[in-house]
């Protein structure tokens, strides 16, 4: 009966709801000018006379135009103008306050530093965005923590930026795009992991709209957004495959990574497949001495949104059992169109303990939030 769906009580008690940690909250500058206080004059001029130069055919529209208000909640465009995610006030009103968010992890996409081809500009933007995140968001709302944004193609700069920010506890992780120019396990990116491990900060991967200058699927360029959206999951599998088989977790045993908005139900099958073929082909990868699924289980965390659904609830529970209940962390993806409301996202019934892990304990432990 439909009304049962409609009128079912919000999941979780008021008490647990006030303790939610949201691991994927998107913010963006209203315009590049918002970043000017932290951008040297050379780069302010660059913004106005050159602009972005990215690895895609168009730069103010996604190569696969999104559904629903350019991929945003239609109600999240601030009345005063600007893109969704530029107004702290609206974020509070629509999400942080009513949904009882205790901590929110900022994921500052936009302004394209991952895709920017001019590495000097990408570095300047990254530095400015990191400063802007603190002053305009984290310092304005004690619930918010930030991710250090670094351009992955300039690993030397990225490592320096991480080192500069590492002792600032307003930052709790490092953010990379999984669509780099090369698979992210390759050695050219290792300075980033060296710095991350030294700083004790997890590295999060969040899909970006445009990629490293190659098709987003090994099958070639997708035609439709539906296909492109599927690559969020396959790209994430590619990153983990690369990190594991390049031996990144052997070389950086304390490194923790978070797969944000990439799904999680594929993780068990990825582990099984890696193990099976590692058994046969391990001679090729002697730097990977343990079954690959062990690295997956030990080093990788996953966020929930877009929440996976199975027709049979037990099937989804199986997946989480295999994945580990200590590895899944709630995320809303506010203000994007496929936002998950914490009250309605889970169609499976969770025990209080399971709920506590997914909605706050796992994230608090990983990020050291108190």
């Amino acid at each position, binding site marked *: 009966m439909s009304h049962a769906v409609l009128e079912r009580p919000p999941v979780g008690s008021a008490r647990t709801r006030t303790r939610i940690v949201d691991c994927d909250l998107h913010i963006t500058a209203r315009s590049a000018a918002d970043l000017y206080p932290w951008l040297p004059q050379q780069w302010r001029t660059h913004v*106005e*006379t*050159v*602009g*972005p*130069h*990215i*690895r*895609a*055919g*168009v*730069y*103010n*529209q996604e*190569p*696969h*135009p*999104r*559904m*629903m*208000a*350019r991929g*945003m909640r239609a109600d999240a465009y601030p009345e005063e103008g600007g893109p969704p995610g530029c107004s702290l006030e609206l974020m509070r009103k629509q999400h942080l306050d009513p949904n009882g968010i205790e901590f929110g992890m900022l994921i500052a996409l936009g302004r394209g530093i991952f895709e920017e*081809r*001019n*590495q000097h500009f990408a570095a300047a933007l990254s530095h400015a965005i990191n400063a802007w995140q603190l002053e305009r968001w984290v310092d304005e709302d004690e619930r918010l923590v930030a991710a250090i944004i670094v351009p992955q193609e300039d690993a030397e700069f990225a490592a320096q930026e991480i080192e500069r920010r590492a002792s600032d506890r307003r930052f709790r992780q490092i953010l990379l795009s999984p669509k780099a*120019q090369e698979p992210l396990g390759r050695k050219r990116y290792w300075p980033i992991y060296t710095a991350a491990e030294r700083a004790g900060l997890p590295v999060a991967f969040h899909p970006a709209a445009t990629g490293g*200058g*190659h*098709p987003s699927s090994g099958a070639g*360029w*997708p*035609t*439709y*957004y539906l296909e*492109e959206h599927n690559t969020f999951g396959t790209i994430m599998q590619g990153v983990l495959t690369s990190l594991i088989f390049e031996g990144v977790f052997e070389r950086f045993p304390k490194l923790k990574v978070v797969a944000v908005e990439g799904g999680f139900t594929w993780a068990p099958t990825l582990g099984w497949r890696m193990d099976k073929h590692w058994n046969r082909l391990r001679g090729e990868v002697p730097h990977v001495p343990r079954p690959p699924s062990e690295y997956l289980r030990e080093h990788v965390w996953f966020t929930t949104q877009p929440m996976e659904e199975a027709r049979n609830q037990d099937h989804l529970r199986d997946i989480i059992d295999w994945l580990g209940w200590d590895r899944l962390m709630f995320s809303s993806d506010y203000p994007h169109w496929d936002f998950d409301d914490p009250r309605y996202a889970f169609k499976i019934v969770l025990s209080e303990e399971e709920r506590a892990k997914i909605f706050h304990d796992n994230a608090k432990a990983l990020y050291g939030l108190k």
Partner: protein
Amino acid sequence: MKLPFRGAVDCDIHPAPPPMSALLPFMSDYWSDQLQNRYIDKFGFTLTSHNPLLAIHGRPDWRPKTGTPGSDIDVLRAQALDDFGSAFAICNVLHGATTLFHGDMAAAILGALNDWLAKELLPRDRRLRGSISVTLQDPKLAVAEIERCADNQDFVQVLLPALGELPIGRRLYWPVFEAAQRAGLPICLHAGSLYRQAPMGNGWPSYFVEDYVTQATAFEGALVSLLAEGVFRKFPDLTFVLAESGVTWLPQFVWRQDKMWLGVRTELPWIDRVPREIIRERVRMTLQPFDAPSDARVIQRIVEHFESDDILLFSTDYPHWHFDGDDVVPDGFTSELIRKIAIDNPYATYARLPRPVAPARNRTEVSA
């Protein structure tokens, strides 16, 4: 130097694409609904290869007070048409929808763009002519669009980006060439990339200036593809116009093809004569940007290297910034050559342009 006469045909100018909202009336209910619900109408598309902020894409004195270069039709009329005394100017509107992977959406937007051009822009001045924009994501749609637009004589060619998804000579694109040939429309390969892959075979460079410079090598790639795949042989009445390609790279390219042909002809038996002859007959290039020193003696030597006066087509590339003032013709071009590239060659290339009957000026000169 400036043009010594009026009545030139400017084979490459760039009115700015209209705002997406201006295209909605030319779309079906479905596409209009899709574009609005997805907010595509609010954001539009800016081509990475045609970023209006860049100096090269708007000469300072050709930038309107508001809006992007080429967006003000009255300014364009005064600067591109009146100032150069052009008889005709061919509008290549470079639209970001060309880059879409969703071929049906691209076709809907470009179809609307063609209608906008035919109904809104071209009627504003009788000197303006248009290019039919198509997407090659589904060649059948491109064929249908060419056939839909071809009856309108204001369209004089079919416009494609030079740096596409696959080399342009590939057989899957042949139905498009067939349709263009049938309609008597040249194919214009214009500078710009879909960025399906890096703009150079070496990977992704950091700066636009690298993209722009290396584009000439991609034009070489397109041209050698047309040659090797046998397109010139298969479509004997089809002309290819390379627009904003730069031109001074062509002679060395031709030398290399001529020499290679001697040894590798058996791989490609359909190349039945020396490539320079094929290129001279079938390929045209727009004048600007003209990449050479300003020394008239050097330029005269370059012109000789072409071994043909038939190839170049006059263009300003308005509002792009390749020269200052009215210094549109390289020093060293003879008046005969200028007449060839500005009048004879364009009318020979574009059969749809109505050539004035025996212009008075010509008679005077002949009798003199």
